[in-house]
């Protein structure tokens, strides 16, 4: 099941992982001016052309953005956290947090939202992420005259910056800054606490049949890093590498984390019986913990997950 990477093909560097979020106004080169003139002359209701976090050009409408559609659960959460929930007129079937989001009109799934439903909601702006959504959706909406603004976030810092960016795009600077400051403070608090502490080795199990872990490019790895641990799958190639149990055994993780989701609820005692798993020190010592699923969602709750992981690692440290 492949989706196109959101990375802008012309090479305008997408801010993946490097924390380079923020609006960049396109330089008015002669060609750019011509394009802009053409765009304006075709009657597109755009006054500002900005580059979103993925580097894609977006034609933002002139008037205030009061009708928003979100096609990613992380964005839905973020908007509510910013206090912009009332501007949301539609979200996906999977937007489950906070509870009011479930009552909104749904436009389908993240990979293939129902374009007709989006159009029917007459949004001023649609918001998506490069991880959950496809570039094709953005292109299609653009053809229908609906702008889509994409955010990217692959780290904790990137997540905070994308929150900032959203606030800027939606002219909501002040409340955003307040929220972001709070998030940054919490992160700083965690960092201060883990400074000087030993770093437990962590195995994060995305899936266990077969074993799929998180690579260095993921949120998970970054969260673990900042929460004071070190992920043993960091130097394995790929975003979601399929590691062998022997390798895990060799790297001897101190603690194993699982995401708390519906589809993944092995009894932790099951691992005591699985050959290979049961030989891991972490399993024998019952250092198996569930972590909120939000560890994979680039929304403000990611910081909650960060704090949760930090708590777990603190416990592990204190026992050892």
């Amino acid at each position, binding site marked *: 099941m492949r989706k196109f990477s959101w990375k802008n093909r012309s090479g305008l560097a997408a801010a993946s992982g490097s924390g380079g979020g923020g609006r960049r106004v396109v330089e008015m080169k002669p060609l750019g001016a011509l394009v802009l003139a053409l765009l304006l002359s075709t009657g597109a209701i755009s006054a500002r052309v900005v580059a979103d976090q993925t580097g894609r050009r977006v034609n933002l409408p002139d008037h205030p953005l009061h009708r928003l559609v979100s096609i990613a659960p992380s964005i839905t959460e973020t908007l509510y956290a910013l206090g912009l929930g009332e501007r949301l007129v539609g979200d996906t079937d999977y937007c489950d947090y906070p509870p009011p989001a479930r009552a909104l009109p749904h436009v389908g799934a993240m990979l293939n939202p129902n374009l007709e439903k989006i159009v029917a909601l007459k949004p001023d702006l649609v918001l998506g992420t490069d991880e959950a959504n496809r570039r094709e959706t953005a292109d299609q909406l653009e053809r229908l005259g609906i702008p889509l603004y994409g955010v990217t976030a692959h780290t904790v810092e990137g997540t905070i910056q994308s929150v900032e960016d959203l606030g800027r795009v939606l002219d909501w600077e002040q409340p955003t800054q307040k929220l972001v400051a709070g998030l940054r403070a919490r992160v700083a608090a965690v960092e201060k606490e883990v400074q000087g502490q030993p770093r437990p080795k962590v195995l994060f199990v995305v899936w266990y049949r077969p074993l799929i872990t998180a690579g260095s490019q993921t949120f998970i790895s970054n969260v673990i890093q900042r929460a004071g641990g070190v992920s043993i799958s960091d130097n394995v190639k790929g975003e979601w590498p399929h*590691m062998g149990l022997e390798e895990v055994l060799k790297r001897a993780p101190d603690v194993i984390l699982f995401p708390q989701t519906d589809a993944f609820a092995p009894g932790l005692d099951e691992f005591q019986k699985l050959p290979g798993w049961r030989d891991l020190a972490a399993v024998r010592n019952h250092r198996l913990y569930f972590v909120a699923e939000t560890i994979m969602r680039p929304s403000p709750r990611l910081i909650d997950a960060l704090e949760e992981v930090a708590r777990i690692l603190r416990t592990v440290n204190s026992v050892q």
Partner: protein
Amino acid sequence: MTLSPTRRNVLLLLLALAAALVVIDFGALALGGVHLSLGEVWSGLLGRYPGSEARVIVRDIRLPRILLAMLVGAALAVSGTGLQALLRNPLADPYVLGISSGSALGAIVALWIGGRMASATPLTAFVGAVLTMSWVYFLGRRAGRLSSYTLLLAGVVTASFLSAIILFVLTLLSTRDVRGMAFWLMGDLSVVTDVQIRFLSPAIIIAIVALYAFSKDLNVLLLGEGEAAHLGVNVARVETAVYLLASLLTGLAVSVSGAIGYLGLLVPHLGRMLVGNDHRTLIPTAAFGGAIMLVLSDTLARTAVAPAELPVGAVTAVAGAPVFIYLLRRTSG
């Protein structure tokens, strides 16, 4: 080459193949992310130095995998052999009758329902296989009897239909679950419990032996249903039995290891090149050949991109395709 099917030859063949398998198993036990010496493998197997890394690796991680690889490889290869005779089609493989799709759908439904069900995927996968098997059997009958032609069509149609449903359900799963499912669809031997091995071993071995008992009937069946009937074969009974046994073998294999392709298609052909078409020598060759191939493929999957692992179905496909093309050129040349 044709190996004359006498009792003596079959016994010699079994001994030779078993010896080869044992040697390869030892090699596989030694190789991996951590390379062990044969001495360490031996002491690991015997259980000396409890708690040592070698013992854990050998007994708890590699040995179950290798056992599973042998069972699944043998099951798929023998199933393919039986189906090629049943359908009188050298291109038949265990998945052409839709069983792997049914099994995958069973697994994916468990994942979709989520919760504790997600751990029960081997069971739901097996149920999916059995249901598909029954359905295709029901469709494949004509005038009260299995007709190879109708069976093949029924299987192909069912497989396509189920694959479409699988793709649809995949869109309903979250992307993370899809990743897990994708690996399952490509085959994976890394998850096996003691219980599974203890259940699978007798089931697969008995099914293979039972299929072997039909060897001489399968030989005659290759000549055509009419010919076989005139030579005294109870065609309806043999076809039903072979269908059930081959499907059972496939269902068992696929429910624990996902869809590992090419083995069921290739190994019988390789076997034919080695010992000929007589099923009395072909079935043992296919069984051991399949075991050997899968152990080799799995070892490669474990070591080629260490510390990461490849899905073993990808290895059999990537290695299998060129071998198949080579066979094709050789036989048509």
